[in-house]
């Protein structure tokens, strides 16, 4: 294909993908995951190690309810980044490692499961190639690793960072709703 067109379509694809995912939903759920992780660190209640990640299944229905009617639907071809077998392999290693740490390790060593799950999120966003998400996926595991390594990570700090991200998510979501009012149905426009 013509190089000029290829470069242009690549730039446009990035721009559309950013707009499509600039609704704050992911920021909110990443924040919620951190708040849950913080509560888990505080209380050791196992429910909170899962509660943070379970609502991720709500993202697709919420996008369908709020995002698609406003900016429309588009299917993006996936960027050719990391080969899928490598991603799946790395994800499996992290997951199995997390499970072993959780069930065979001591109470304190369960904490790395949070970093491991965030590592899975990193693989996911690398696969999807979203910029802001990539930043989250890199900095949040670092936040945990460095915080735990230096023994300065307290549940309060984790909850605070999560709360800030949740607030950012809500702010972005409100801005998104204001910027993109619902569009009329398009059923008869193209027929």
């Amino acid at each position, binding site marked *: *294909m*013509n190089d*000029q*067109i290829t470069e*242009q*379509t*690549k730039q*446009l*694809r990035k721009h*559309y993908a950013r*707009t499509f995912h600039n609704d704050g939903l992911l920021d909110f759920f990443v924040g919620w995951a951190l708040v849950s992780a913080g509560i888990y660190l505080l209380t050791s209640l196992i429910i909170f190690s899962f509660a943070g990640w379970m609502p991720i299944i709500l993202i*697709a*229905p919420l996008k*369908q309810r709020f995002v*698609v*009617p*406003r*900016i*429309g*639907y*588009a*299917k*993006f*071809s996936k960027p050719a980044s990391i080969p899928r077998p490598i991603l799946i392999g790395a994800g499996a290693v992290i997951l199995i490692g997390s499970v072993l740490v959780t069930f065979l390790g001591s109470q304190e060593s369960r904490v790395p499961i949070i970093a491991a799950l965030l590592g899975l999120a990193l693989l996911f966003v690398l696969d999807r190639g979203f910029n802001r998400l990539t930043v989250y996926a890199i900095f949040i595991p670092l936040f945990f690793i460095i915080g735990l390594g230096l023994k300065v990570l307290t549940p309060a700090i984790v909850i605070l960072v999560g709360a800030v991200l949740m607030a950012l998510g809500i702010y972005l979501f409100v801005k998104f709703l204001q910027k*993109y009012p619902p*569009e009329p149905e*398009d*059923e008869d*426009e*193209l*027929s």
Partner: protein
Amino acid sequence: MTEDYPLDPREISGLDRVIHSPARLKIMLVLMSVEEADFTFITHATELTRGNLSANLTKLEEAGYIKIEKKFIERVPKTIASITPAGKKALEDYSSLLGPILDELRKS
């Protein structure tokens, strides 16, 4: 045309008039960037009015450059447009023809 200035204006008449319209070129570029998109998305991406977009989509469909079909996306019926192989080729041909002309203009 002189030998030291290879830009031949006659080549411009070979440009594809279906794609040459700014509105249709925008639509083609948007559809080239995604696998498929609905009317609302293309409206935002091209900043065309809904009526203008509808008319130009019809022209592109008639030329065989795009395909318009009804699909269920997450159980919601949508009218979806996507670029066809003929459309991709037409856009490439258009770029191949216009590109060198623009390059010559830049040099002059």
